[in-house]
């Protein structure tokens, strides 16, 4: 019995963890090349959910179209954040602290725009019931939605990995990450690369938001926790390592769900924060150490 419970919690952990993995790489995709602590990512996450709600429930678009539309608009929001907030500051020669403070300001503005447009009531996006019906396997249950979550995250992670390794843009992003000045000198259009990384990170976070919203519903406050998880995953995985962030996200999801075994679920974020503190204390470079070391060799 205990064993089945353990297995069930493990499966739940993998489902949640695969979304955390997505959050982790979405934040890494922005932070690694640009070095901006993009707190507005929280708002992009929430906005993605509300775009989806507006398209699917408000205007009755078919679900796949709504999801694509929400992803696209989120990507545009990420690009706008860079153009409107960060790039003018960068041209002024402002430091990381000013960028982050502006990001907080932008977050507050966007968060309250949501309150003005959609009010603070919880919303749900309806999906076909079949997807939410549990399939019993022995003493375990999981839903088709769970399977879709894991598969979609896996595909997205693989796609990002291939994109980073084999495409010109992906390579340019890694070049900018390692040495922005050197990248500029060799003729890489750094400004444009930054826009791409904001676009990529924002559509990835929209995918994570979609699964969260159809499963658990939508409230204006869900973004902060998402960004906390994303940043913890990034640090625990070793900043700049996409596979590290993904693995760390998965691990946090599993740790949270196994934790429910002993601790009540309100303390979930406490668990992820404890993981962070442990890593900061004992392994500040994350799982895999810093990726930079590999380039130097």
């Amino acid at each position: 019995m205990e064993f089945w419970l353990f297995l069930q919690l493990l499966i739940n952990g993998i489902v949640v963890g695969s979304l955390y993995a997505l959050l982790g790489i979405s934040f890494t995709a922005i932070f690694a090349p640009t070095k901006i602590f993009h707190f507005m990512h929280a708002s992009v996450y929430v906005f993605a959910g509300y775009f989806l709600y507006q398209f699917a429930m408000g205007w009755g678009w078919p679900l796949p179209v709504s999801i694509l539309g929400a992803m696209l608009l989120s990507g545009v929001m990420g690009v706008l954040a860079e153009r409107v907030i960060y790039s003018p500051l960068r041209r002024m020669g402002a430091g990381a602290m000013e960028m982050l403070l502006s990001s907080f300001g932008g977050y507050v503005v966007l968060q309250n725009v949501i309150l003005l447009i959609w009010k603070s009531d919880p919303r749900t996006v309806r999906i076909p019931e079949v997807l939410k019906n549990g399939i019993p396997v022995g003493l375990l249950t999981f839903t088709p939605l769970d399977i879709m979550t894991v598969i979609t995250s896996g595909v997205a992670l693989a796609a990002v990995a291939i994109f980073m390794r084999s495409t010109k843009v992906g390579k340019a992003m890694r070049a900018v990450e390692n040495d922005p000045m050197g990248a500029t000198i060799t003729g890489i259009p750094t400004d444009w690369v930054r826009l791409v990384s904001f676009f990529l990170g924002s559509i990835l976070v929209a995918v994570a938001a979609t699964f969260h919203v159809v499963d658990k519903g939508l409230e204006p406050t869900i973004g902060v926790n998402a960004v906390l998880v994303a940043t913890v995953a990034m640090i625990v995985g070793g900043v700049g390592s996409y596979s590290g962030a993904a693995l760390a996200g998965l691990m946090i999801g599993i740790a949270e769900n196994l934790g429910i075994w002993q601790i009540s679920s309100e303390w979930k974020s406490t668990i992820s924060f404890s993981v962070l503190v442990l890593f900061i204390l004992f392994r500040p470079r994350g799982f895999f150490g810093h990726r930079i070391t590999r380039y130097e060799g």
Partner: protein
Amino acid sequence: MNYLIYVISLIAVYGILTVSLNLSVGYTGILSVAQGAFMGIGAYAAAILLTQWGFNFFSSLLVGMAIAGLVAWGLAWATLRLKGDYYVIASFGFQIIIYNIFLNWISLTRGPFGIRQIPPPQAFGFTFLGPLRYAILTLGFLAICVWVARRVGESPYGKVLRAIREDEAAAASIGKNVSRYKIVIFTVSAMLASVGGAFYAGLITYIDPFTFTIHESIFILALVIIGGSGNVYGSVIGAAVLISIPEMLRFFDVPTTVASPIREILYGALMIIFLRLRPKGLLPERITTGVRR
């Protein structure tokens, strides 16, 4: 008239909070988004001790400061070895944990119901009842906090803090124990924030967890930036301006569901505009060169 006095008390409360955060953000360059949490610790300590344990306001103030100080010391010790953004993440996580404790430790904090009917402060048989007495008391404590902050910030000690902000390695290279300075100033900042929290609880007479979220922390940060980071008086001015202007919205016929988002959009936008056009804030930092005797 009472309303005006209430707004003055509120300005004094946020003045205390802003001055406290300015010590770590403005002087030392430790960006923290946990000030709302330390404010909450002070507020809850005062509320719980006053309503359930029959403490005096001023002794509960000391208890709150002690708790906030200990917690801050622990957090600083564990995480201040991180630079820049990483430290922010730690304070961000800490803020969320403390909020979760306020919300979920129901036997202590009454969770989402909050704590009501927090009694007014008393000392030597004198009750600070009524808005005017409370405003005078709060302003008095604001003055004390400003004095403490200036003693710390505008002294040789403060010069070291600024050196750490500008260049940690250089400060360390002239023999300054950078981590110790950071831990001490962070602890002092948290203790002052808990004082602000206790006065907040006494002023509103009702607290719930939803006040002490990351939004509150960002709001206090905005006050520091707009007032002028590294300038104690700037913090007081910042609080005065950003509390009083939105309060005027009350005189127009705007429903609260619209007024409070508009107020927040205003300060978020002001924060961005100031960082772009006047990063030094309303009252810029004044750096005295040389040694005055």
